């Protein structure tokens, strides 16, 4: 889970090297190194952390942020930004609590409704950004305010109702297993989401998405419907936020503060993963690793018994240092062109 293996696709060494460099090269190497260092640090502090139940607990806690980071990755790699996910997570949990109100039978329909709402929010974000040409920072900032306000306007300021047991299962429950004691649903969901995300990014849509983030005009001239592709990225982000809301609501239940600040955590995670703000570069695996790194960092702080108050400072320092380090790697002069020698003449 934590150390993704390079995929052996058996089409030659260059292929493996290519995948490896895609995974570990560029800005992404930093995040994997950092992740390993942090895990080593946690393990040194507390060897029991590596025991399956502890790891499972870690995954359960980290799952929502990883899911959010994957959603944010789609948007960032397309050259945009989604600040509304934190508010959306909060709103979705509140919607769930208010509408389910403890009734088990309502779980399914409400989940469906949340999905619809998530898609809707993503559509609005995407269409305002692509059709009305509003910078996504502003669009999603506005959406963040709207969701924050509307959610509290609806509930009078604090969430009401209660989540059903079924709703809480994905984030809290799991399958009884011998070694790990409880294999959390969230781990299974996470694995599914990561696989799906990797597949999506290897599919035509994923390639087109990155191309749009890299060079919008070239993509458009290649027959890409840029507005659709970008809007879909926003929809994916919102759907991921909805899933994160299900996981987080399941994990910890309803509190008034749920979701606050998650947008910045998700963006931080993605950027820490070497994905460049502005689009066109970075892998979804690295974004996921970024999210795990952020969560592992909190765990490390806890293991170090770092005073609660100083943790943000340490977090800020490490993020800046890691991104600076990755930027240093990237800003090295470009390798020279290959064909300084004349090409073979053919005629």
């Amino acid at each position, binding site marked *: 889970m934590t150390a993704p293996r390079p995929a052996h696709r058996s089409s030659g060494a260059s292929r493996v090297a*290519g995948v490896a460099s895609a995974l570990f090269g560029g800005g992404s190497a930093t995040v994997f190194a950092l992740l390993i260092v942090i895990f080593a640090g946690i393990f040194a502090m507390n060897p029991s952390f590596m025991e399956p139940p502890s790891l499972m607990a870690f995954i359960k806690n980290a799952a929502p942020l990883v899911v959010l980071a994957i959603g944010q990755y789609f948007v960032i790699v397309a050259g945009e930004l989604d600040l509304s996910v934190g508010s959306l997570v909060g709103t979705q949990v509140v919607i769930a609590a208010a509408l389910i109100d403890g009734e088990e039978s309502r779980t399914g329909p409400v989940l469906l409704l949340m999905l619809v709402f998530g898609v809707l929010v993503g559509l609005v974000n995407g269409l305002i950004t692509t059709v009305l040409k509003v910078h996504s920072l502003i669009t999603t900032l506005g959406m963040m305010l709207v969701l924050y306000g509307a959610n509290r306007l609806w509930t009078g300021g604090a969430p009401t109702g209660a989540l059903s047991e079924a709703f809480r299962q994905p984030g809290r429950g799991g399958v009884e297993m011998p070694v790990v004691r409880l294999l959390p649903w969230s781990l299974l969901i996470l694995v599914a989401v990561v696989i799906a995300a990797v597949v999506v990014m290897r599919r035509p849509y994923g390639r*087109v998405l990155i191309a749009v983030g890299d*060079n919008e005009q*070239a993509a458009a001239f290649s*027959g890409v419907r840029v507005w659709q592709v970008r809007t879909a990225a926003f929809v994916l982000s919102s759907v991921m936020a909805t899933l994160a809301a299900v996981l987080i609501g399941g994990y910890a239940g309803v509190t008034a503060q749920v979701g606050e600040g998650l947008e910045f955590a998700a963006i931080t995670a993605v950027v820490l993963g070497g994905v460049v703000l502005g689009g066109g570069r970075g892998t979804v695996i690295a974004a996921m690793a970024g999210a795990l790194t952020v969560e592992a960092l909190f765990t490390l702080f806890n293991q170090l018994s770092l005073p609660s108050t100083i943790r943000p400072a340490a977090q800020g320092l490490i993020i800046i240092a890691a991104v600076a380090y990755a930027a240093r790697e990237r800003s090295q002069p470009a390798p020279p*062109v290959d064909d300084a020698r004349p*090409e073979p003449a053919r005629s």
Partner: protein
Amino acid sequence: MTASTPEAAGGGAAVSTHLLRMRGISKSFLGVRVLHGVDLDLRAGEVHALVGENGAGKSTLMKILAGVHQADSGTVELDGAAVAFEHPLQAQQARVSTVFQEFNLLPDRTVAENVFLGREPRTRGMVDARRMNADTAQLLADLGLTWLTPQAPVRSLSVAGQQIVEIVKALSYDARIISMDEPTAALADEEVDLLYRLIARLRERGVAILYVSHRLKEIFDLCDRVTVLKDGALVDTVDTATLRPDELVRMMVGRPISSFFPDKLPGTAPGDVRLRVTGGGNDQLDGIDLEVRAGEITCLAGLQGSGRTEIAHALFGIARFTRGTVQVDGRTVRLRSPRQAVRTGLALVTEDRKAEGLALNQSVAANARLVLDAVDPRRAAARARRIPGLLSSLDLVARGPDQEVRFLSGGNQQKVVLAKWLATEPSVIVLDEPTRGIDVGAKHRVYTLMRELAADGVAILMVSSELPEVIGMADRVIVLRDGRIAGELPGGTTEEAVMALATGQVPGGPMS
């Protein structure tokens, strides 16, 4: 036309001493040598061409002179004093200015603000906009450019206007040396002429000009001496007066020019009309009637802005035709987006590779698949299997399919673009300036490719501003003027005939 004879220029240069002396310049990036031991001299009042294939090291040498890069070894002497520019600012302060290929202008700022960018005149510590405008107006007047206003936002200028602003900016530093990187690459012919006159004036003032160009004609028209680089090393520096064009080409590529435009492949014959435009028009174009046949290379010629690129864009749904009809293979189609155009069987190799053709941070493979991924996602994987074969048949030089295209040379980037479009198996392919800014070897491959495609029955519409290319390749030449078709000429026509139509002069009339 040889507006400035090499003799006259050479005579002027002979009295000058060496203004600049670069000796043994070497430079490596990541351990790969891009320049080794290059020498270059510039005399006051000379126009000195710097030529070589893409990747020969021209740009790097220029950037070392400009202070953008620093040489790993070697010396630069200016007026006999050793200098080492670590920043473009130092070069400019030493009165060495550079006009780069990518415009270094701020579109949202005015001409004057751009000219004096970085050293705005101040009065009592405050920027004096009035003086800045007056000084700019003076500089423009000195060059006879009174039609340019200092307060005009650069965004509102044509390419030539922007180029001129660049040169004025260089002059405002009272430059002794101005290097120009492909200054005519983006200019229409009449604008080129304007540039020539400007260069003549600069030469009179004793300014040394280092002129990087791919266009041989300009080198012989304009330059006194030429320095040839190949593979990062100096080949020779010679007077243009004593040099023949084919000799120069041989120095650059080690290959005679004779085989440059390949012959038609056997069995190539014009077939059915694949693409027909009737009465096409929009806010840029009017009355466009056009037929492109299978197996035929049809060429759109005309001055810059005559509507060549606009037709390509209109055909591809980028800027649509608002009038008239377009038929592909006999069926009337409405092309409202590139996507529809691709689905109809069209392909467009755009003129600006970096801005419109490639996602530079993506791999060769990803770029080559892009159209398939975008337009036919379900069958993209299957159809993309052709791509490796296409790329190797195009002689692509790259580390592998995973190499990012920004690391490739212009020629190889163009091959990736071509592969991207060939992968769609188009029935009509529009090539907009397919050889712009690429080296001679790659150019040749593009020409042979066109012949191969024609032999396969693809209809080819080529847009080109290089007349030799038009004459050498086209089966039919359609000449545009002011957004309308000025006339059609058969293949093998003369450049004079094309120019006559393009400029509206009576054929056979005085050409210069």
